[in-house]
């Protein structure tokens, strides 16, 4: 509850911050301070200190997995503010509002990671989505940004409708008409057409929200059209929060009827992996490549949804964290670049060694090379599938796709390190570099000692 209320209040504060604070940098500083406060509140919540005793009538259930996912999303937001705070403020004329919208999204994530009723899921997902429609179009004078916003809104509204329909079907399928997850999990007549329809509709709309194929078509255009700082937020923090919600939905409501839906998820995972990776190969812009790579990474995360065992829940926590950190770092660098094509990265190792080195670590992590967190994250995913004893074809397919992913991630490394290019006179502050190094260190640290994060799933206080 701490983070829901704090983030909402912070959002309101940020909305009015423009009245008192004139400088962009001070607004960014205020937002960073707010994010620190929010993180502290969320971590305290995780450790058992609840400051807002609200009776949610069991609509929300604050269990460790969702809480930890929420903490990760908030921590990533903090890193995101520290890295790109000024760039967020510089999107347009109303710097305070962008931060306010981001805090509202965080409020939505806090709800979506702790819902225990389908209504709350709907509420959380909508609170996430609506500010994002605005953020996507926040570069008002840019036609591409407007187009992306409109496209995202139309498609998003459509998928919201599908989600509501799915929820309605499940309501009808439950024994005495209920939105609670446990009531849906304990339905006696499992696999009735009504229930399956509801389940499939929910799967479709959630797949849309996490941009899993074949419901991903909005992703490249929206990610490409949105201001790069906003893309960074959407592709990492929002994706992480939504995915935790996706996992919680299936684990708590449909966990006992795996045999009815696993094949759908397997097909979605395989399609997502295939389309994400193959299309990313042909991209000429690093920004679009990262958009497709984020689809490809979702394909890997879906493996956890398929199995829903211990390794999966440990793995998805690690996966969202390292994927998010690496992507925030990469997008953060991309924001500073003037040329988004692969050629724009040529010779970066010579002129900006810190940027190139940290970018290389983030890319290696996304590709899943050992010593970076990305490897262990992928390890947990495939291990959780192998443990089930079936679906081996999916593992092999996923790893073949991972090999393809090396191709496009390494294109950036090759451009940075092995090709000569002219200096671009980028404006990079020492603080930005320090932050990048810190993020790279976290990626490596999680690649060697994943239990630093995973063990939090099992530590209960009080």
């Amino acid at each position, binding site marked *: 509850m701490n983070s829901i209320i704090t983030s909402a209040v912070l959002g309101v504060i940020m909305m009015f911050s423009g009245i008192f604070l004139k400088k962009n940098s001070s607004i960014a500083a205020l937002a960073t301070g707010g994010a620190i406060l929010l993180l502290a509140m969320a971590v305290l919540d995780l450790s058992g200190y609840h400051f807002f005793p609200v009776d949610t009538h069991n609509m929300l259930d604050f269990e460790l997995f969702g809480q930890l996912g929420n903490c990760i999303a908030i921590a990533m937001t903090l890193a995101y503010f520290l890295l790109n705070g000024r760039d967020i403020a510089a999107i347009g004329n109303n710097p305070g509002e962008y931060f306010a919208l981001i805090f509202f999204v965080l409020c939505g994530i806090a709800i979506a990671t702790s819902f225990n009723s389908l209504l709350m899921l709907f509420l959380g997902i909508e609170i996430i989505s609506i500010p994002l429609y605005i953020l996507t179009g926040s570069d008002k004078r840019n036609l591409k940004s407007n187009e992306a916003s409109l496209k995202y809104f139309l498609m998003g509204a459509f998928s919201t409708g599908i989600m509501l329909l799915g929820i309605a079907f499940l309501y009808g399928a439950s024994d005495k008409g209920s939105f609670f997850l446990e009531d849906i999990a304990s339905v006696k007549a499992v696999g009735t057409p009504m229930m399956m329809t509801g389940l499939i509709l929910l799967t479709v709309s959630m797949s849309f929200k996490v941009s899993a194929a074949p419901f991903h078509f909005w992703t490249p255009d929206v990610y490409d059209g949105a201001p790069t700082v906003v893309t960074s937020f959407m592709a990492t923090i929002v994706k992480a929060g939504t995915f935790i919600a996706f996992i919680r939905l299936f684990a708590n409501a449909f966990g006992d009827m795996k045999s009815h839906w696993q094949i759908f998820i397997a097909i979605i995972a395989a399609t997502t992996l295939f389309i994400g990776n193959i299309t990313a190969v042909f991209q000429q812009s690093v920004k679009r490549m990262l958009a497709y790579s984020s689809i490809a990474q979702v394909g890997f995360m879906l493996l956890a949804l398929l199995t829903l065992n211990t390794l999966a829940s*440990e793995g998805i926590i690690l996966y969202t964290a390292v994927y998010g950190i690496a992507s925030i770092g990469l997008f953060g660098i991309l924001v500073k670049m003037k040329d988004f094509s692969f050629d724009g990265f040529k010779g970066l190792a010579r002129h900006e060694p810190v940027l190139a080195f940290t970018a290389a670590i983030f890319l*290696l992590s996304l590709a899943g*090379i*050992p*010593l970076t967190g990305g*490897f*262990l994250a992928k*390890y947990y995913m*495939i*291990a959780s599938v*192998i*443990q089930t004893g079936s679906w*081996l074809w999916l*593992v*092999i397919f996923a*790893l*073949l796709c*991972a*090999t393809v992913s*090396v*191709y496009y991630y*390494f294109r950036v490394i*090759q451009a940075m*390190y*092995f*090709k000569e290019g002219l200096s671009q006179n980028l404006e990079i502050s020492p603080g930005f570099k320090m932050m990048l190094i810190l993020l790279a260190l976290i990626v490596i640290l999680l690649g060697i*000692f*994943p*239990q630093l994060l*995973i*063990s939090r799933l099992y530590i209960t206080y009080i």
Partner: protein
Amino acid sequence: MVPVLLIGIPLLAGLIGFSLKDASARGWSLFASLLTLIVSLVGISMPRDSKLLSFSTDWIISLNSHFAVALDGTGQILSLLTALAFPIIFISTWKEDYKRAKNFYGLMLLSQAGLLGVFLATDALLFYFFWELALIPVYFLASQWGGERRIAATFKFFIYTFLGSLMMLIGIIYIYFHTKDHSFALSSFYGAHLLIQADTQAWLFWFIFLAFAIKMPIFPFHTWQPDTYEQSPTAVTMVLSGLMVKMGVFGLIRWLAPVLPMGTYMWGDTVSTLSIIGMIYAYLIAMQQDDLKRLVAYSSIAHIGLMCVAIFATTEPGIQGVMIQMFNHGINIIGLWIVVFLIEKQFGTRKISELGGLASKAPVLTMLLVIITLANIALPLTNGFIGEFLMFTGIYSSRATTYNVVFTVTAAITVILSAVYMLNMVQRVFYGSTNALTAKAVDIRPGEKMILAFIVILILIVGVYPEPLFRLTQDAVNTLLSKMYIKP
């Protein structure tokens, strides 16, 4: 503690190397590699049961994985080779001026750390970690300091090996879930085959073998090799051919054959046939080669192929021969690369057709090269003879295959034929008349002379008195054979 030092010294020295000045990096890395060599020599001279030779501590607790390293078995001879090879590589390429030298030497030391980690790890996940870690620095080295087509060539190499590694990862995880105590420890892996059905072992074998086959490389997974060897800077080629290909052979001996004995027996004939096809194929192509680097690369495919056949024959002399030959091949091929490197530096070409008559101008180089070549084609009194003789004995007396005679005869013929192209190369490069390019040739400098002489002395010592190496590898041979149910 010794294995931790063996991995830690090059690792730390490499990281420190990045922060040094370009001029001092060379001396620093030589110092670090000599230090590693000393530790390695101390390690192998210790009594086998010494507690200092192994180290284990918890690593990823939730996966029951340990940071477990030990200097034992097959790891001893290969860690000795690795520790020995790096000082040789550094000294022989001492005069080379690399751009951004500190990065070059730093990455070289990191690759040594990775290699030693592969040879010393006794935990499967750790083994996999180091397996990949050895690859990354080499990829950067070859792509940054290599020849014209370096980026494409090394990328092909990277993709190939990465794909192999990922398939191996599936195999490792599968076996992990079938160990009794859900552990990555080598000892648990050795017990796992009792719980894995024979038909499962049959397909599981290929998942793991693919990684090793690509690394060795076995026909038809070898296509990355000649390009990569040709395009890499010579120092890196030495690491690749002298040490990294041994990772494949080592993996087969330590992590595949004893872990999945039934799978290994089932596919023995198939793999041996592929190896022999590869040997013939390598011979046919090597005959046509005009480029010295590519010639040596193809000769390496033939040697590794023979080792692979000998492993699948599973006999005591055969395995013993493989162990010795891994060491010998590393030394000999590094010697050959040094000669190629010297020739390329002096004349600016590696084309055999453009060279000739060096013997009259550079008698010392010629003499040393001839001995190394003879060792490479396994003439008696050289180290190569010991290894290959034992391997042929092993293959011939094998009871694991019904085609032992066929394998022996065909393999022996290709080995004899390999003498043709090696001696042909010596004749065309060093004898005959000089041309405009080689007329002004000068002999090698004292430093280069010393390092080549050192290699020749090693060749002769092992060739005449191989006993110490046998003693070093006997344990490993016994372990493998008992896990393969040949010996009690």
